């Protein structure tokens, strides 16, 4: 497996009796962006939530199979969810900064929760994370004055990205990160993705196929819990091999 990559072997997931993922095996390339597309309820969000053990947060949920981040099987005994989530960050559809905390504290919170080593300068790490999330220039003068909630939607989302990046994860999972944002804010997030993949492997769930086409080198198409096709994005959107992928990307679906 390439550096920073994710290898998934025979991943199955359930909510109670309902099977949400069926036998997913996939190799996600490190330091690239991979988009996950598919209709509502196809399992794409469940899939990414299995990549950092968020799936099991739901008491009805369980999963089997193996997920390797680097050389670590994150489902192996002895690997803790906290450890996994430090290595695999996540950003959600709706920006969720801690509303009462300042911008600075929002980013620092992630570091503190993950056992920030004393002696290193917290301020440097916060600045670096905000820079990587392309938010620093917009907030540097109000870091401790303004709350995270006072920012615009797009800035809040970049703040959440900064919070996720602060602990220097190897993988960043994004579940519809721009679907609540206007086109300008969306464009900023997409530009940011281009920068980020230098240093982090990105897996993005999106309903917007044009967005997948713009940001991702690889795309996986899910349908009814199964991975139907996984290939380079240009192949998926110009000449998919599977008729079901073709029907979905051309809107002939259903």
């Amino acid at each position, binding site marked *: 497996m390439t550096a920073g990559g994710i290898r998934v072997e025979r991943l199955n997931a359930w909510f109670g009796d309902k099977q949400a993922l069926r036998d997913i095996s996939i190799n996600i390339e490190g330091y690239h962006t991979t988009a996950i597309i598919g209709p509502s309820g196809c399992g794409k969000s469940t899939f990414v939530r299995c990549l950092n053990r968020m799936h099991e947060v739901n008491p009805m949920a369980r999963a089997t199979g193996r997920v390797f981040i680097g050389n670590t099987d994150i489902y192996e005994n002895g690997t803790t969810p906290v450890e996994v989530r430090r290595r695999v960050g996540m950003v959600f559809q709706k920006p969720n900064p801690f509303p009462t905390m300042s911008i600075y504290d929002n980013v620092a919170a992630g570091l503190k929760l993950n056992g920030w080593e004393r002696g290193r300068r917290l301020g440097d790490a916060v600045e670096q994370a905000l820079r990587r999330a392309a938010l620093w220039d917009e907030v540097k003068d109000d870091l401790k004055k303004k709350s995270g909630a006072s920012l615009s939607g797009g800035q809040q989302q970049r703040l959440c990205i900064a919070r996720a990046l602060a602990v220097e994860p190897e993988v960043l999972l994004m579940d519809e990160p721009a679907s609540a944002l206007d086109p300008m804010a969306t464009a900023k997030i997409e530009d940011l993705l281009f920068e980020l993949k230098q240093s982090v492997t990105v897996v993005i769930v999106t309903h917007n*196929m*044009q967005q997948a*086409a713009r940001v991702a080198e690889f795309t996986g198409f899910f349908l009814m819990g199964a991975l139907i096709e996984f290939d380079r994005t240009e192949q998926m*959107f*110009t*000449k*998919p091999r599977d008729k079901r992928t*073709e029907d979905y990307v*051309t*809107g002939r679906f259903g």
Partner: protein
Amino acid sequence: MSRTRFHEALDGLRQELVAMGGMAERAVELAVRAYTERDLSLCREVFSGEVVINSTERRLDEVVLDLLAMQQPMAVDLRLILAISKCIADLERVGDQAVNIAECVEQLLGLPEFESPADLPEMASLARMMLRRALNAFVDADAAEAQAVLLLDDELDAMNDHAYTAVAAAKAAEPAFTQNLLNFLIIARNFERIGDHATNIAEDVIFWVRGADVRHHATSNE
């Protein structure tokens, strides 16, 4: 526009391209008849037909642009729209070539009669057959038929080379008929070009149907 209406619009565009193909075929047919029947009025029909082909080109190009901008088509739809866009340009050129032939016929009708040393009717019939089969392949989304068209192009090229040799020889023997001979050569050249455009259309059909680029003898079947 909903996706259903988009697909209806795309089907409509496809039919309009077929209609434009019919106009181009008709233009070539008229030009060939103008030559064989030495009929000036048929030349004029070619000229007036070209105006319609040109305006069709502009209109269909606009539809293509709108669908690309507004619908962001994907996969087979994207390939079809690109193929149509290129076919539009090829058919417009076929219309121009019919005009070129008709202009030569016009000139020939003002010159003393002289029989062509090149077998122009034979070239005409092969070029027209290639165009018809390429358009049929488009109508039927038939990549195998399109592939068959590609194989005919070498034959037409060889005929064109042969026409050149024959005309050159005739010019040496009958310099007084150089004007006639130059016109024969231009006509042959235009039939050869029509074959090239039919080839392009056939390649576009293969790209649309199979997603494969077979231009310039590429063999990729991906």
